[in-house]
């Protein structure tokens, strides 16, 4: 418990841990937006979410290799991933979209393994990173620090969050997406091309993941097999925040990031990931108990 004492002695460090967590949570929030969207509209839990994220990173890596400045790839990686998402929908996902959840989990699990091996074949198993060219800002005599790239990530999350909300509320496609998520059959009867809605939703998810991956390759590192981390985190965030609630996703993501950092500091790094899984179990059980109580109350 010496570690708790350190936090009490140095409150700025406690604050820094929270800030670090929130900044990394911002990137997780992006992946979670996408997962909530696909889950809510198509009733698919996309296990390949993490692979989409790291593919965004590899897109940035490839584009910078072609001589494009890393920051300019931030808008380009989502475009690349939109196309990838669309193609994957056309090949696999449209076949499982009306089937039960188990089939689509299996299908996306398969896609995730396939993508991992494909990345491994093309880029090799080495760890990759891209230097963003941004620096870190320090405040109060180095006591607090804010890396610019992570602040940029928070900005992008807010822009994406707002953009997504506006898109779903006021565009034709957005309304079609919402209609389809409420009742696909009724939407079809009303003339909505649900196939196109599904394709757009899935591709949009891949694009959002692409933005997240692009940020990750510039802040942390990626490898062909590091996608699972992001699948699990976004799943956890969606479980906590629920489907179709964008502000809740952001709050949950920030909270998870901060909680994880505190756990890593206080319990030691070996329990950091274990803590995330532990939290997942606690939240699922807790939610079930709460729901159970509500049902009893309604009876």
């Amino acid at each position, binding site marked *: 418990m010496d570690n708790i004492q350190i936090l009490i002695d140095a409150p700025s460090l406690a604050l820094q841990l929270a800030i670090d967590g929130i900044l990394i949570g911002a990137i997780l929030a992006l992946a979670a937006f996408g997962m909530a969207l696909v889950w809510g509209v198509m009733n698919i839990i996309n296990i390949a979410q993490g692979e989409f994220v790291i593919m965004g990173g590899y897109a940035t890596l490839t584009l*910078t290799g072609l001589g494009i400045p890393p920051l300019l790839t931030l808008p380009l990686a989502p475009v690349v991933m939109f196309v990838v998402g669309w193609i994957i929908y056309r090949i696999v996902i449209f076949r499982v979209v009306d089937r039960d959840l188990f089939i689509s989990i299996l299908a996306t699990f398969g896609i995730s393994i396939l993508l991992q091996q494909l990345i491994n074949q093309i880029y090799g*198993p080495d760890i990759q990173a891209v230097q963003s060219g941004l620096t870190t800002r320090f405040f109060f005599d180095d006591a607090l620090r804010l890396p610019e790239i992570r602040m940029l990530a928070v900005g992008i999350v807010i822009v994406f969050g707002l953009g997504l909300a506006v898109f779903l509320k006021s565009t034709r496609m957005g309304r079609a997406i919402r209609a389809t998520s409420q009742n696909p059959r009724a939407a079809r009867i009303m003339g909505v091309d649900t196939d196109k809605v599904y394709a757009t939703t899935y591709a949009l998810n891949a694009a959002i993941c692409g933005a997240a991956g692009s940020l990750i390759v510039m802040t942390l590192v990626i490898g062909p097999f590091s996608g699972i981390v992001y699948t699990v985190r976004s799943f956890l965030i969606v479980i906590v925040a629920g489907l179709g609630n964008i502000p809740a996703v952001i709050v949950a993501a920030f909270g998870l990031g901060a909680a994880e950092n505190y756990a890593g500091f206080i319990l030691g790094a070996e329990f950091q990931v274990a803590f995330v899984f532990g939290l997942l179990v606690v939240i699922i059980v807790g939610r079930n108990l709460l729901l159970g109580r509500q049902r009893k109350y309604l009876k």
Partner: protein
Amino acid sequence: MSVISKSLTVFAAGATAAALMASAPAIAQDTETIVLGAALSITGKYATAGIHTQKGYDLAVKRVNEMGGIMIGGKKFMIAVKYYDDESTPARGAQLAERLIVQDGIKLMLGPYSSGLTKAIAPITEKHNIPMVEGNGASRSLFTQGYKNLFAVLSTSEQYLTEAIALAVKQAIKEGRDPKTLKVALAMENDPFSQDVRLGLVEDIKKFGLNLIIDDKLPPDLSDMSATLNKVRALKPDILLVSGHSKGAALVTRQMAEMRVKVPMLAITHCESAKVTDTKKFGNNAEGTLCAAQWAPSMAYEGEWFGTAAEYTATFEAEYGYVPPYQAAESTAAVLVFVDAIRRAQSADPDKVRAALVATDLNTFYGDIRFSSVGNNVAKPMILRQIQNGKYVPVAPSQFVDGEMIFPRPGS
């Protein structure tokens, strides 16, 4: 049906041809060939290092054959290696080792890449009593099983970073500071290799009486080290030691700079595979980092077949177009150990070769090789190289290198 059987025939023919090409490079008619076997990671997550290993083996085979092969009882023998791809999975590696020995009749085995694969294959070679010389399985646990057929040319994992502790103590004495006041931080991945590295370090920390203030175990799927590094920032150790394969090396290089964590000495493993000196990926954030290595081209080692370490490097570069990483060098050394043992045994019989292997006392470009009773090489130390102006400069141990450590590391 006929289409299937036809394509199967074609496939089988192709596979046989490929196997022949791999195992029998143009051999004169009046010579015989001793075929060594190896299951290697040509695909999968260890593919990069697996291919370095293969090139190391191939270069040794080529050189030995060019220089006339091995003379046994006045007769000339060439050598060759038969390879299979283990797809970087231990189960497949074990299966292929069985196949090499039982079906292909291989009597002498070369090691695979990585401790994990070696761990899977060693019981198979032990079962069939086939000697295996390996250059890429460093885990200490390989040498506690009582294997009689396992011989490793490389330093074992608990030695990887201990040289850094010795260096820190030396530096403290030089500055007139009591080494017992040194504070040490460890961040070691929670996997067999890095935990072996940790054991060696903890032993030395106790031996010198240093203070271990941080002892974090990084989970294998960790993607962010900021919790550990925040602790380092708060507790200000004198030396930080990190082992977490290439991911750990990349993360610590990137995040130390981003978080402006100041530690006078930083020693890590896997610098080369993480490419920490690549300025496109890491800027010059790796400057001053100490990197553990089994071998480096600038070492003052020399031996038969390849001459000095520098000459080996030139030969390898001419053949494959890049500077050999230590994975390639130690693989070449493994073949040379077999050649030496076969020559002394005057036979390729496994029992005679094993007896000769036990008595190995060989100087090579890779370092001196003598095996302990459990089969690890006790004659060659690990080296530490510091990144100075983007180049790897060997700085320890002092009897083999001429570089000077820059202390403290820049920016701290």
